């Protein structure tokens, strides 16, 4: 099996799905000739032509808005928002329409749309190129939020997202795009949405993470009997796997890059407490980004949860 980076795995998933289904079309800024600023769509224009790999004018709300119309008409658009910080102008189309069209029309019209966007700190870029605002998207019913943490899961999750009958926001960590290579199977190897994976079994503590944070977590638990769960899908998230792990370990650390207040960790913490409180040996700890405006590159590494901060979070729950 070929070894691939996440960029290559995503590119392969797009290629395979476009090969399989003529209704799959890509659109966004610089996705065509340029192959995407991270090269995730490289080569696809030459293979599938400008009718299926569409360079759009610079307008994120418009990109998502027309994608909704394309999806309602019967296509399966895969829209790229160049960076997550630029999805904010499209939130109205996502919240007011993508998430509601099925319900509003009682199923007459649907929105099988995928919105891919790079997220998180990772490339020493200017402002708004490092956002991780997944929690905003998780509050709205009618959309699903997926965050891969490895090349192979990225490929399997993207294929599932494209085939999903409802809108999916697919978040790609810029830090992970080229960080690791691993063997990635060609063909229809899908990773189902809504299921988490236990990356590492353990008895003492359950560590919950996704996307960019998973690797740091793995580094900081090496010598511990910690169970690490990669959520992969945030909404709907895999309650069963998480709760049963917590009931086993009795200790929970949640790690995310986004700011703490109202981050997705809050929902996980609240849900765990509701379902497994009586099994908890210690308070749940959240290791997260800070409640500040995201700093420019000189301080971004200080903002990002470090292996050391994660470690301290784990030690805290182990005190009990």
């Amino acid at each position, binding site marked *: 099996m070929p070894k691939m980076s996440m960029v290559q795995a995503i590119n392969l998933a797009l290629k395979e799905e476009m090969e399989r289904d003529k209704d799959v079309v890509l659109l966004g800024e610089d996705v065509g000739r340029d192959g995407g600023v991270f090269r995730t769509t490289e080569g696809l224009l030459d293979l599938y032509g400008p009718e299926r790999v569409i360079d759009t004018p610079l307008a994120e709300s418009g990109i998502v*808005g027309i994608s909704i119309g*394309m999806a309602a*008409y019967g296509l399966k658009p895969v829209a790229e928002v160049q960076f997550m910080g630029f999805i904010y102008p499209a939130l109205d189309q996502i919240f007011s329409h993508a998430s509601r069209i099925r319900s509003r029309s009682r199923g007459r019209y649907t929105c099988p749309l995928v919105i891919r966007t790079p997220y998180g700190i990772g490339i020493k870029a200017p402002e708004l190129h490092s956002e991780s605002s997944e929690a905003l998207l998780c509050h709205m019913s009618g959309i699903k939020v997926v965050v891969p943490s490895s090349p192979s899961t990225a490929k399997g999750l993207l294929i599932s997202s494209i085939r999903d009958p409802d809108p999916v926001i697919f978040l790609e960590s810029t830090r992970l795009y080229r960080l690791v290579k691993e063997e990635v199977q060609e063909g229809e190897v899908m990773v189902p949405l809504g299921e988490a994976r236990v990356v590492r079994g353990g008895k003492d503590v359950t560590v919950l993470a996704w996307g960019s944070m998973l690797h740091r977590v793995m580094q900081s638990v090496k010598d511990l009997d910690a169970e690490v769960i990669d959520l992969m899908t945030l909404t709907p998230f895999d309650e069963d796997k998480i709760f049963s792990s917590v009931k086993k370990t009795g200790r929970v650390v949640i790690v995310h890059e986004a700011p703490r207040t109202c981050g997705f960790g809050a929902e996980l913490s609240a849900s765990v407490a509701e379902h497994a409180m009586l099994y908890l040996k210690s308070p749940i700890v959240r290791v997260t980004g800070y409640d500040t405006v995201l700093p420019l590159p000189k301080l971004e590494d200080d903002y990002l949860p470090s292996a050391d901060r994660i470690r301290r979070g784990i030690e805290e729950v182990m005190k009990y």
Partner: protein
Amino acid sequence: MPEKTIETFTIERLDILDEKGNADESLLPALSEDEIKKTYELLVVSRIFDHRALNLQREGRLGTYASILGQEASQIGSALALEKTDWIFPTFREMGVYIAMGYPMYMLFQYWSGDERGVKTPDDLNIFPVCVPVGTQIPHAVGAAMAAKYRGDKIAVAVFFGDGGTSKGDFHEALNMAGVFRLPVVFICQNNHWAISVPRERQTAAKTLAQKAVGYGFDGLQVDGNDIFAVYKAVKSAAANARAGEGPSMIECVTYRMSDHTTADDASRYRSQEEIEAWKPKDPILRLKLFMEKKGLWSEEYGKGVEERSKEKVDEAVKKAESVEPPKPGDMFLYTYEKPSKRQMKQSEDF
């Protein structure tokens, strides 16, 4: 400072039928007597529907409702120029369009009574559900047109919006993309002179709304929106061009919102009775009636007959709407996703 002129644009206006019912025969669209009668009957039934909806709201039998009074020609003229295979994206004030396209009237009452099932479009139509957030439907129309073009479907997409809608970023991003990709879209703006209490002049400094098309590289045309022949003719040719692959265009229908913005509004707070009176002689139905009289197509008893048949249709629609089983609380969990999530299933146990 002296400069050289590198571009020149003109905005045209189309008028065919005047307030006295006189038509410029050279411009008259080719409509048979039966078609003209059908047109008149649709205008009348839409107005009666509208009137009834206002009454039902007062009686607490409907929720907030947005009247189309005065805008019937813009809506029905546009709808009659479109095919059932065309895709249509309305706002919340397009009841005339729904009715003219043959949308079941009882479902419209059902919708305004607060029941989603009223905008589950029947399979033989391609009209989108009512869109409440102003301007946000415009990109959907452009996307549908993009998909139709990709599939090679020879259809036109028509999208409706108001004068207020032209101020939204969605309008701009959508029209710009339609221009770039030369998509088969007809952008139909009903300039009814008001966006709730904000008058047309406060909405934009542009003298016409049609001229906004200049910024997107395609044509904008202004028509008398109370002149059903002008509206019909303009939309018909724009839609034909769209289907023929000649790209998008925009039509500004100059009309007037004769009623309050919605049943929740009191327009007397912000506009004068004189202004409303001045528009009464321009009424689109009166105008067609006068034209038909001249042509011997309208008589007192024909008029009465149309009125009565229309009232009956509307009565039936109301009866049918109110005999529909109310939705069950658990229904709110349907259609959020194709399959409800575990979380939703658990939550739905409350009912």
